[in-house]
C-alpha cells in the first residue's frame, strides 16, 4: 500500500524572479519573425510611406528586449512559483473540482487537425470538429436530461449570464418583460447566480438557509410572486448539502410564472445519479472545465455548457450544431436567438478535451467518478472531525454531506486568534495549495471549503487531514508561528497590502509602478 506522507521539508521554488523589464538589454530579442520574400520586400519597401503620417507609430514601444533562453527561463521560473492541481494535492479548491487533467488531452489539442483550424472554414472542411461538438452536446443531454445544449459560453458565469438573457427573452416574448423584474437566488449559490442576472437587468432577492443549512423554502415561497422572472439556484450548494426540496421550489416558481435555472457547477457527484430534468428545471449549466476533466488554465479558457428544455431552444445563441444523418451543419436561421454570446462556437479546445475525457469514462466511469467523490468526501469528513477545534457548516444537522464541505476555523480563531487566512498560508509550508475559503460574505466564520474529488487517493486525503491537524496544533501552541507564515513558499508574508485599495499606490502595469514608487 502507498504511504501517507506529510511533507515537512517542502519548499516551493523561490526564484526571487525579477520583473521581465529588469532582464531587458537593448538590442536583444527572443525571436525573428519571417521577413517577406526578397522580391516582395524590395518591391514594397516603401509601403509605409503610403500611410498617412498620423497612423504611423511614433510613440516608443517600451517592451522588454530579452534573448530567447532568458524569456523561456523567466516564465519557467514563474510557472514553478505557481501550484497547479496536476502538481499538488489540490483538495484545497473546494467547489472548483480540481481533478486530474489528463496529459493525453494536451497531446490531442496539439494535433494540427485541431490546432490549425480556422473557425470560419466551410463546415464541409471541419466535419470532424462539428462531430465533436454535436456528440459532446449529446453526452451532456444525457447527463442533464435537457433537450438542447449550447457550448458557446466561455465559462460557468457566462453560461449563467446566457441563461439570464434567455429568461429576459422568454418573458419579453410573453409581454411580461417589465412586470417580471426580479430574480431569486440563495446565499450559498455561487455569486454569479446573483451577479449575472443583475447584469441582465434584474433585481435580486437572496434567500438564506434554514437552521439545517437548506435554503428556506418558506422564504422562497414568500418571495415568489408575479414579479418573479426566475430562480437561479445551485444544488448542492457550496456547503455540500443536497437540497431535497429542489422540485418543490421549481413548482413554487413555475406556479407564479417564473423560470427555474439549476446551477450545476457542483455536478461532479451526481453524474448519472440525479439530473436537472427530473427536478423539473427549465435550464441548467455545467462547468466543463471542472466536471469534465479539462484544466482550469489559471482561470480559463473554459466552457460553460448551457442546457435547456425544448421550449427555450429558440433563444439559444447562434449557431446551433445540427446533423442531418450524413453531414454536420451550422444553423444560423434562428430569428428569436439571442445572437452571439462568444465569438465563434466557443472554446473548442475545452470541448475537444472534454469529449476525450468523457469517452475515457463512459456511463459507468461517470457514475464511478460520482460515487468515489462522495465517498472520498465523507471519509475526509470523518478524519477531519477528529481534529480539535475544527468545525463545519451546520455540523450535526443529521444530513449526510455530498461532494464537498465547508469547514470552519471559527473555534480555533476564538481560542488562538489564528483564522482561515493564517492557516491557509501555513498549510503552504507543507506543500498544500491555497485553499478556497468561501465567497463573500463569509456566512460561515473562518471558512475552508474542501472537495476531495475522484482523482485523489486515500493517502492524499490522509495527508491533507494530517496537515490541517499539524497547523491546528501549531496554532494552539504557538499562534505567531502560523500568523507569520508562510516560510517555505515562493514569497513571505505580505505587508502593505492596503496599497491594493489605494489609487495613489496601486499599479496595474510596470510603467505605473515605476512612476508611483519612483523606481529606476
Amino acid at each position: 500500500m502507498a504511504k501517507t506522507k506529510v511533507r515537512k521539508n517542502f519548499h516551493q521554488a523561490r526564484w526571487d524572479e525579477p520583473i521581465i523589464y529588469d532582464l531587458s538589454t537593448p538590442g536583444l530579442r527572443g525571436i525573428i519573425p519571417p521577413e517577406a520574400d526578397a522580391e516582395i520586400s524590395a518591391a514594397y519597401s516603401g509601403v509605409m510611406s503610403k500611410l498617412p503620417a498620423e497612423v504611423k507609430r511614433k510613440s516608443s514601444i517600451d517592451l522588454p528586449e530579452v534573448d530567447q533562453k532568458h524569456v523561456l527561463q523567466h516564465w519557467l521560473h514563474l510557472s514553478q512559483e505557481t501550484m497547479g492541481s496536476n502538481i499538488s494535492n489540490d483538495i484545497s479548491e473546494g467547489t472548483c473540482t480540481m481533478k486530474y487533467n489528463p496529459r493525453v488531452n494536451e497531446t490531442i489539442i496539439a494535433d494540427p487537425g485541431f490546432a490549425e483550424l480556422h473557425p470560419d472554414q466551410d463546415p464541409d472542411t471541419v466535419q470532424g470538429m462539428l462531430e465533436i461538438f454535436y456528440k459532446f452536446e449529446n453526452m451532456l443531454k444525457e447527463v442533464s436530461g435537457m433537450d438542447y445544449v449550447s457550448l458557446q459560453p466561455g465559462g460557468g458565469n457566462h453560461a449563467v449570464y446566457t441563461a439570464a438573457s434567455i429568461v429576459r427573452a422568454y418573458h419579453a416574448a410573453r409581454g411580461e418583460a417589465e412586470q417580471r423584474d426580479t430574480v431569486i437566488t440563495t446565499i450559498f449559490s455561487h455569486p454569479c447566480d446573483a451577479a449575472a442576472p443583475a447584469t441582465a437587468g434584474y433585481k435580486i432577492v437572496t434567500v438564506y438557509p434554514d437552521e439545517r443549512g437548506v435554503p428556506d423554502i418558506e422564504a422562497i415561497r414568500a418571495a415568489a410572486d408575479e414579479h418573479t422572472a426566475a430562480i437561479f439556484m445551485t444544488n448542492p450548494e457550496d456547503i455540500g448539502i443536497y437540497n431535497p426540496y429542489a422540485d418543490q421550489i421549481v413548482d413554487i416558481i413555475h406556479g407564479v410564472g417564473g423560470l427555474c435555472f439549476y446551477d450545476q457547477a457542483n455536478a461532479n457527484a451526481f453524474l448519472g445519479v440525479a439530473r436537472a430534468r427530473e427536478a423539473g428545471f427549465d435550464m441548467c449549466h455545467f462547468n466543463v472545465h471542472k466536471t469534465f476533466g479539462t484544466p482550469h488554465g489559471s482561470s480559463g479558457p473554459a466552457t460553460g455548457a448551457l442546457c435547456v428544455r425544448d421550449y427555450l431552444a429558440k433563444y439559444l445563441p447562434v449557431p446551433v450544431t445540427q446533423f442531418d444523418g450524413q453531414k454536420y451543419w451550422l444553423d444560423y436561421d434562428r430569428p428569436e436567438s439571442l445572437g452571439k454570446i462568444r465569438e465563434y462556437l466557443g472554446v473548442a479546445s475545452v470541448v475537444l478535451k472534454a469529449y476525450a475525457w468523457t469517452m475515457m469514462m463512459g456511463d459507468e466511469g461517470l457514475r464511478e467518478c460520482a460515487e468515489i467523490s462522495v465517498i472520498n468526501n465523507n471519509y475526509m469528513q470523518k478524519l477531519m472531525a477528529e481534529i480539535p477545534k475544527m468545525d463545519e457548516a451546520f455540523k450535526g444537522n443529521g444530513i449526510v454531506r455530498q461532494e464537498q464541505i465547508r469547514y470552519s476555523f471559527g473555534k480555533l480563531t476564538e481560542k488562538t486568534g489564528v483564522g482561515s487566512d493564517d492557516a491557509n498560508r501555513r498549510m503552504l509550508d507543507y506543500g498544500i495549495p491555497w485553499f478556497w475559503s468561501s465567497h463573500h460574505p463569509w456566512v460561515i466564520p473562518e471558512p475552508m471549503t474542501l472537495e476531495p474529488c475522484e482523482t485523489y487517493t486515500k493517502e492524499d486525503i490522509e495527508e491533507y487531514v494530517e496537515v490541517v491537524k499539524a497547523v491546528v496544533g501549531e496554532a494552539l501552541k504557538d499562534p505567531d508561528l502560523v500568523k507569520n507564515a508562510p516560510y517555505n513558499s515562493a514569497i513571505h508574508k505580505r505587508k502593505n497590502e492596503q496599497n491594493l485599495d489605494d489609487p495613489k499606490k496601486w499599479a496595474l502595469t510596470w510603467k505605473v509602478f515605476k512612476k508611483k514608487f519612483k523606481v529606476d
Partner: protein
Amino acid sequence: MTKKFAHPYIPNSQPAIKAALLKALDMKSAEDIYKEIPEHLRYRKKMNIPEPIQSEYLLLRHVEGILQKNKNAKNLVCFLGGGTWQHYVPAVCDTIMERDEFLTAYVGEAYSDHGKFQALFETGSMICDLTGMDACNTPVYDWGNAVAIASRMASRTTGRKEILIASNAGPERVSIVKNYVKPDIAVNFINYDKGTGLLDLTDLKAKLSKNTAAVYFETPSYIGVIETQAAKICKLAKAKGALSIVGVDPSSLGVFEAPGAYGADYVVGNYQPLGQHMQFGGGCGGFICTHDDKKFIAEYPSLLFGMYAVDGTEEDGELGFGEVFYERTSYASREKGKDFVGTSAALIGITAGVYMALMGPQGFKELGTGILQRVAYTKDRLAQIPGVSLPIDSVGFSDFLVSFKGKSVAEVNKALLAFGVIGGKDVSGDFPEFGQSALYSVTEVHTKEDLDKLIDALTAIMPTADAV
C-alpha cells in the same frame, strides 16, 4: 465497475480501497450518501453515452480519426482572418502554455501562485506598452466581450445610456455587445464611406449627443481599413463628453500608432494573434486597457492583478502582487459588484505575455512591416485578375476585402479548395454593399509561394475578361 481494474483516473475505484473507505464510514455503498436525494429526483437508468475507450492509445486513435475529417491550415494555405488569424506561434509559447503549473492552476492567491500573478501583471504591462495605456484587466473571454464590458464600464462612468458603434466593426463582436448591454443601454451605428472604408465623421457628429456614453471603432476595422481619422474621432467624442473605445489587432501596433497616444479612453482587442494557434476559434482572449484613473479602474468587473509595494513582503526586496480593489467584483459583492466575474481566458493572457517578450519592439516592427508588404503585393496581383476587384484600395494590414464578378464567393471558395487553398470569409451577407465579397487575410506565415498559389488559382478559376 464491472471491470476488475481501477480506472486510471480514479484510484479509489480499486475495489479493495473502495471497500475499505466504505467500511471506515460504516456504509455499504454510496447509496448511503445518496439517500439524501429523494427517490423521485434520482436517475436510475443508464445514460446513453458511448462505451468507454479506456486504453489511452486507442482513445488517441479514436479522436485522431475524427480530427482527420478536418482540412487544416497546415496542410492547406489559409486566407481566413477577421478575428482569428494564423500567425506563427513560437515554440516557447507552446512550452509555457503546456506547463502543468499554469495549465492546471486556478484561483489560488499570490502565496501559492505568485508566478501566476507576476505573469499576468507582466502581460498587462506589455499590452499597455503596445496600446499606450496604463492599466489592464486579467483576460476576458474574447474581443467582443471586451468591447461589451468596456461599453458598460463607459456607461457607468458617464452615467449615459447609448453606445455608438462603427458599422464597419466585426459583426460577431457587435452581436455580443448588443446582448450584453441590454436592457438599459441603446446601441446605434455610425455610417462609413463605402469607397474609403473610413468612418463618416459628419454622421458621427450628427449622432453624438449628451446621451452618448462611448464611441466604438476599430483600426484596422473588420473590413481591413486603417482608420486614418482615429485621433479626430476620439476628439469629437471627447468634445461631447463621450468616451472612446478603440478596437485593435495588437500585432499591428509595431507599425501603427498606439491608441493611447491619440486620445483613446479604452483600448480593446484579442490576445489570439499573440502566440495562440487558431484552435477552431478557441484561441481567443480579450483585453481592456484604460488609463490609471479611478473613474475607469473602479468600473472593471474583472480581477485586476497589481503590484503594490517596493517591499511587498516581510523579506526585503520581494515583489508583492495582489488583487486591486477587490470589492468592485461580484466575487466580493455579489449583485452589487460590477457586472460579473468568473473563469475567462487567463492562460491565453499568460502566453501572450511570453509572445510579447519574445518579440520585443523590434519584432513587432518587423512583423508589421512584413505583413504590410505581403498584403500590398497580394492586393496588387489580385487586382489584375479579371473578375476580381478590391472595393477598398488603401494600404491594409492583414485583412482586406476582395470582390468577385461572374462567380459567387461560395463558388470561388469551393473551387479554391481543389487548389489546396482556403479562401476568404464570405461577407456578402454582412456587407451586401460590396456585392459578392470575401474577407481575405495575409500574415507573416504566408510565403510568396503561398500568395502566388492563391493568385494562380484565382486566375484559373475566374472567367476570362471577355466572359465577365
